[in-house]
C-alpha cells in the first residue's frame, strides 16, 4: 500500500483533473484494492444469478433443453405469474396512495423533529421486519382466532370466514402486503415531498394562485415522476416478497416465489422437471428487469426537480 504514496498529487477539490490523471497513471497497485470486493460480488451476486437463470436451460442429466422454457406457458405457471403481478400491482397502488397521504401529513415538519425521526424509525422497522412476524401479526388480527375476527363475531355476529378461511390463501395476503408497502412508500417518497420548495408556493401566491391550484399545477406535476418511481419500487418489493406468504400460506403455491419453493424442495417437482425453479427465476428476473428499467427512466425525470 505504501508504494502508491507519491501518487496522491496536490489535486484539490477545485482541480480534480490532475489528481484523476495522476491516479490513472499509477492505477495498477491501487486497483488491487478493488479486487476483494469485485471477487465477492462476482461469487455471491453475479454467479448465483447466472446459475439461477442458466439452470433453467438444462435437464436433470445436464443436457441443454428448452422444455423448461415451454413450461412457462403451462396454465398453472401462467396463473401464478398472473396472481403475483395482480397482487403486487394492487398492493403497490394502495400502498403508494396511503403512503403519499402520510408524506403529505408529515410535510412541513423539519427532518430533525421528534415526530419525523419516530415515523422514520417505525417505517424502517415495518418495511424491513416484514416476513414471518408480519404473518404472525395478521394471524393474531384476522386469523381464525384473531382479535378482529372474534370482535366482529361477538359484537356484530359477522363471520368473515363464512366463505372459507381466505386469510390463509391469496386474498389473505393483500392486507399484510399493504402493511409493509405503506412504510416503504413513506421511506422512498418522503425525500421528494420534502424537496418541494417554499419559493414555488410563494411564486404561486404572488401570481394569485390558490392552495388547490398549487397542488394541481405545481405540486402534483413535480411529484408525479417520483410518485411513479416509488410505485414501481413498491411493485418490485411485493413481487419479490417471499417470507410473509411462506409463513402465512402454508399450503398451495399461488404466487411465483412459493412456486419456486415448491420446485426447489419437492422431490417430484411440478410437471416432473426439477430445473423448473431456474426457469421461474428467469421469468421473475425478466419482469423485475422491465420494472427496474422503467424505474430508471422515471427516476431520471424525477431527479430534475431534486436539488
Amino acid at each position, binding site marked *: *500500500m*505504501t508504494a502508491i504514496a507519491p501518487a*496522491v498529487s496536490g*489535486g484539490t477539490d477545485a482541480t480534480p483533473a490532475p*489528481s484523476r490523471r495522476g491516479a490513472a497513471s499509477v492505477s495498477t497497485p*491501487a*486497483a488491487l*484494492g*478493488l479486487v*476483494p*470486493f469485485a471477487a*465477492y*460480488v462476482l461469487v*455471491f*451476486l453475479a*454467479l*448465483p*444469478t*447466472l*446459475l*439461477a*437463470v442458466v439452470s433453467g436451460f438444462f435437464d436433470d442429466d445436464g443436457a441443454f433443453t428448452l422444455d423448461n422454457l415451454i413450461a412457462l406457458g403451462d396454465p398453472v405457471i401462467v396463473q401464478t405469474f398472473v396472481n403475483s403481478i395482480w397482487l403486487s400491482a394492487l398492493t403497490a397502488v394502495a400502498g403508494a396512495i396511503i403512503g403519499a397521504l*402520510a408524506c*403529505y*401529513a408529515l*410535510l*412541513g415538519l423539519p*427532518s*430533525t*423533529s421528534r415526530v419525523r*425521526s419516530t415515523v422514520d*424509525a*417505525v417505517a*424502517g*422497522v*415495518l418495511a424491513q*421486519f*416484514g*416476513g*414471518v*412476524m408480519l404473518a*404472525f401479526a395478521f394471524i*393474531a*388480527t384476522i386469523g381464525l382466532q384473531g*382479535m*378482529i375476527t372474534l370482535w366482529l363475531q361477538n359484537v356484530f355476529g359477522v363471520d368473515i370466514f363464512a366463505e372459507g378461511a381466505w386469510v390463509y390463501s391469496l386474498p389473505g395476503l393483500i392486507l399484510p402486503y399493504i402493511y409493509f408497502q405503506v412504510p416503504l412508500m413513506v421511506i422512498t417518497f418522503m425525500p421528494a415531498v420534502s424537496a*418541494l420548495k*417554499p419559493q414555488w408556493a*410563494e411564486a404561486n401566491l404572488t401570481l394569485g394562485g390558490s392552495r388547490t391550484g*398549487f397542488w394541481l399545477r405545481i405540486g402534483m406535476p413535480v411529484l408525479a415522476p417520483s410518485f411513479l418511481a416509488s410505485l414501481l419500487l413498491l411493485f418490485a418489493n411485493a413481487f*419479490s416478497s*417471499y*417470507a410473509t406468504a*411462506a409463513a402465512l400460506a402454508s399450503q398451495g403455491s399461488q404466487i411465483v*416465489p412459493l412456486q419456486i*419453493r415448491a420446485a426447489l424442495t419437492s422431490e417430484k417437482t411440478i410437471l416432473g422437471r426439477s430445473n423448473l425453479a431456474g426457469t421461474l*427465476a428467469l421469468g421473475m*428476473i425478466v419482469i*423485475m428487469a422491465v*420494472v427496474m428499467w422503467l424505474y430508471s427512466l422515471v427516476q431520471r425525470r424525477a431527479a430534475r426537480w431534486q436539488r
Partner: protein
Amino acid sequence: MAAVSRAAASTGFAPGRTARWIIGILIAGVFSIPIIAMIEFTLRDRDGGHSFVHWTGLFDPANAPKYQPIWQGLTNSLILAVVTIAIVLLLLAPTMILVTLRFPRLSRPLEFIALLPISIPAIVLVVGLAPVYLVIGRTFGTGIWSLAFAYGITVLPYAYRAIQASIDATDVRTLAEAARSLGASWSDVLFRVLAPNLRAGLLAASLISVAVVLGEYTIASLLARQNLQTALVVVGKQDAYVAVVFSLLALAFAFALLLVIGRASTPTARKARS
C-alpha cells in the same frame, strides 16, 4: 422547528393542523391494530381470560427446552449479524473510499452494482446460491457464519446508501490528502482520519445490517439453515404464543435500533448544512 413549519404553512402547501392530525391518527390507528392484536394475543390465557402467563413463562426453567430453537436461532442470527457487519466495514466501506479517492469514474458502476440486489429477488438468488453453497460447504465447512456471505449481498443496497451519504457529506479527498501530506500512512488515513469522520454512516450501515439480518427468512429457510426467523416458524407451530412474544421483542429491538440510527445521523446532517 416551529419557524420552518410556520413558513411552510404560511406559503400554503403544507396541510393545516386539523388535516395533519386526522391523517396521522387514521393511519397510525390502523397500523397499530396488528401490533395491538399481537399484544392481546400474548396476554390470552388458556381459560379465555387475560393474564401475563405467557410472558412470565419465559422465565420458567421448565419451558427451557421449548425455547431452545429460539435461543439457538438468535445466537446464529447474532453471529451472522457480526460477520455481515465485518463484510460491510472491511470489504464494502474501504472499497467505496478507494473508489472515491482514486477511481471517481468507477463510482457510477459501483452504485449500480450496490443497488442491484434490490432488483434480484432473494428467492432467485437462493436458486443460484444452493450450488455455490455446496462448494463453500466443502471448502469452509457448513458453519452458520458462512451464510453471512449471502447476507452481505442482501444488505448491500442499504449499507451502500448509508455510507455514501456520509462520504458525500465529508470532504474525503481533501482529508486524505491533508493527512498524507502530513506524513500519515494509508492505514492511518483509513482508520484514524476517514473512519472517525464517516462514523455516522458506518454506524447506520451496521445497524441497518443487524435489522436486515435479524429479519431474514427466505435464504436461511431455503438453504436449510437455522436463524431467528426460521426458529420462530418452528416454535410457532408448537406454541404460537411464545413465537408472538419473541416477535414483539424483536420488533421492539429493531425499533430501538432504527431510532438510534435516526438520532445518530441527525448531527451529521446538521453539520453538513451549516
